C-alpha cells in the first residue's frame, strides 16, 4: 500500500491542479489577513470558507482522480498486489496531497504574519485539523461514489449532489425541522442531527473552541450546554474519526467485489 501511496502522491504533487489549489489557499490567506488585519478575525472568516470549500474540493478531486487513473488502476490490478492496498493507497495519496496543499497554503501567510507569537495559534491549528478531517472524509466519500458508478457523468453528478446536500440542503432541512417541531424538546434531535453531518459537526467544533457566542447557532448552544467545551471536543473528534473510518472501510469492501 505504501508504494501505491508513494506513486499516487508523487503523481499528484506534480499535477497542475495541486499547485492551483495551493496558490488559491496562499492567496486566500494573504487577502484575509490584509482585510481583517487581525489573526483571530481572519481565522473566523477562514472557517466559513474552509467548511464549505474543502469538502467541495475533496469531492471533486477524489472523483476526478479515480476516473482519470482508471487504466493505471487496471495495470496495477494485474500486478501481485491486494486490491484493498491499491485503492487505499490511491485514496491516501489524494487525501494527503490535498491536505498538504491546505496546510502549506494557509500556513505560510499566517506564519509570516506572526502566528507563533499570537494566541490564535490553537484556533488556527484546530481549523487546519478540521480541514484535514473534512478532506479525508469527502475524498473517501468521493471514492465510494466513483467505485459504485461506472458512468463518469453520473459519478460526478452524485458527488456534487452529496456535497450540495451536506453543505447546504441539510442545514435548511435541519432549520425547518426545528421550526416545525418547536413545541417539542429538540435538544437531543439537534445534537444527533449535527453529528450526522461532518460539515455541521466541524462548524460546531470550531465555534465551540473559538468561543464566539454571537456566532453560535442552535446546535452549538446545545453542544455547549450539554457537553461543555472539552467533552464536546472529544466527542466531535470521535465522530469525525468514525466519519473517516466508515467510507474507508467501504472502499476496501467494495473494491474486493468489483469487476474491472
Amino acid at each position, binding site marked *: 500500500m505504501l508504494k501505491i501511496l508513494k506513486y499516487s502522491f508523487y*503523481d499528484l504533487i506534480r499535477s497542475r491542479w495541486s499547485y492551483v489549489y495551493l496558490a488559491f489557499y496562499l492567496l486566500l490567506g494573504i487577502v484575509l489577513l490584509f482585510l481583517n488585519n487581525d489573526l483571530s478575525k481572519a481565522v473566523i472568516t477562514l472557517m466559513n470558507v474552509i467548511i464549505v470549500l474543502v469538502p467541495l474540493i475533496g469531492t471533486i478531486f477524489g472523483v476526478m482522480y479515480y476516473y482519470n487513473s482508471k487504466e493505471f488502476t*487496471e495495470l496495477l490490478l*494485474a500486478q*501481485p498486489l491486494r486490491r484493498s492496498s491499491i485503492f487505499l493507497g490511491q485514496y491516501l495519496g489524494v487525501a494527503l496531497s490535498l491536505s498538504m496543499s491546505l496546510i502549506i497554503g494557509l500556513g505560510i501567510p499566517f506564519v509570516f504574519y506572526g502566528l507563533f507569537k499570537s494566541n490564535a495559534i490553537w484556533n488556527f491549528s484546530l481549523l487546519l485539523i478540521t480541514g484535514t478531517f473534512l478532506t479525508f472524509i469527502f475524498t473517501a466519500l468521493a471514492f465510494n461514489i466513483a467505485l459504485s458508478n461506472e458512468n463518469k457523468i453520473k459519478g460526478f453528478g452524485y458527488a456534487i449532489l452529496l456535497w450540495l446536500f451536506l453543505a447546504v440542503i441539510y442545514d435548511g432541512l435541519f432549520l425547518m425541522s426545528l421550526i416545525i417541531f418547536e413545541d417539542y424538546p429538540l435538544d437531543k434531535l439537534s445534537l444527533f442531527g449535527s453529528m450526522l453531518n461532518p460539515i455541521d459537526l466541524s462548524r460546531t467544533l470550531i465555534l465551540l473552541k473559538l468561543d464566539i457566542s454571537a456566532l453560535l447557532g442552535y446546535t452549538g448552544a446545545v453542544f455547549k450546554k450539554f457537553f461543555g467545551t472539552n467533552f464536546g471536543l472529544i466527542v466531535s473528534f470521535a465522530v469525525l474519526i468514525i466519519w473517516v473510518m466508515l467510507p474507508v472501510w467501504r472502499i476496501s469492501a467494495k473494491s474486493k467485489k468489483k469487476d*474491472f
Partner: protein
Amino acid sequence: MVTIENLHKRFSKNIVLSGVNLEIKSGGIFAVLGPNGSGKTTLIKSILGMVIPNKGIIKVMDENIKKNAHYRNKIDYLPQIANFPSNLKVKELITMIKDLRGATNEDEALISLFGLEPFLNKKLGTLSGGTKQKVNLVLTFMFDSPLVILDEPTTGLDPISLIHLKELIQKEKAKGKTILITSHIMSFVEEVSDEIVFILEGKIYFKGTISEIKSNTKQPDFEHAIASILTQNNHA
C-alpha cells in the same frame, strides 16, 4: 498450468460466460479466439482476478486464485489498451513497476530492441499509441514469469516491431513458458499459435490445433475455417 472449471460470469443481465471448462497445459502458445463480445477478455480477466466470477473455480499452477493476490507474481499481462498516468515519464513507470514486482535486468535489452531510448525521459501523456504499446510490451516481457497473457498484442505496432514481437514470443516459448494470446488478426494467430481455443456465446466451442480446425470444417485455410464456424452458427 491453468485449470478452469464451470466458470460463470454475467454483468447484470448480460451473460458473458456460461460454464467454461478449460485446461491449459504447461508450455506452448494458446490463442483465445471468438467474435466480438464472446467473452475472450472476460475469460482472461477472470484468470487475472480482475473480474470476479459468479460461479466456478480457477486454478493457476494448482493454486486457487480466489482471494489471492500472490499468484499474479507468476503472470505477465499485457492489457488491451495501454494508458498510463500521463504525468509519469517512461523511465519512472518502468522503475515503478520494477519496484512493485521485483528487480529485473531484462528491461534495457527490451528498450533497445523496440528503440525506446529517445522516449525514456518523455512523459507518457505525450507518446503516440504505437509507442505506448511498445512501453506496454517492455513492461510485460521484462519479467520472467511462467505464464504470459497478451490481450491484442499487435495493436498499433509498426511492421518492424511486429517482427520483434513475434521473435519475443518464440523466445519465451523456447524457455518453456505458457503464452495466452487473444487477437483478431488471423494471420498473426496462425503464424504464432500452437493451439486454438474458440469461444462462442460464453462456452468453449472448439479446442485443438489449427490443422484440426481446418479438417473439421473442410476449409483449406485458417481464416475461412474460422469464418465457416461463425456462419454455421448463425444459421443454426
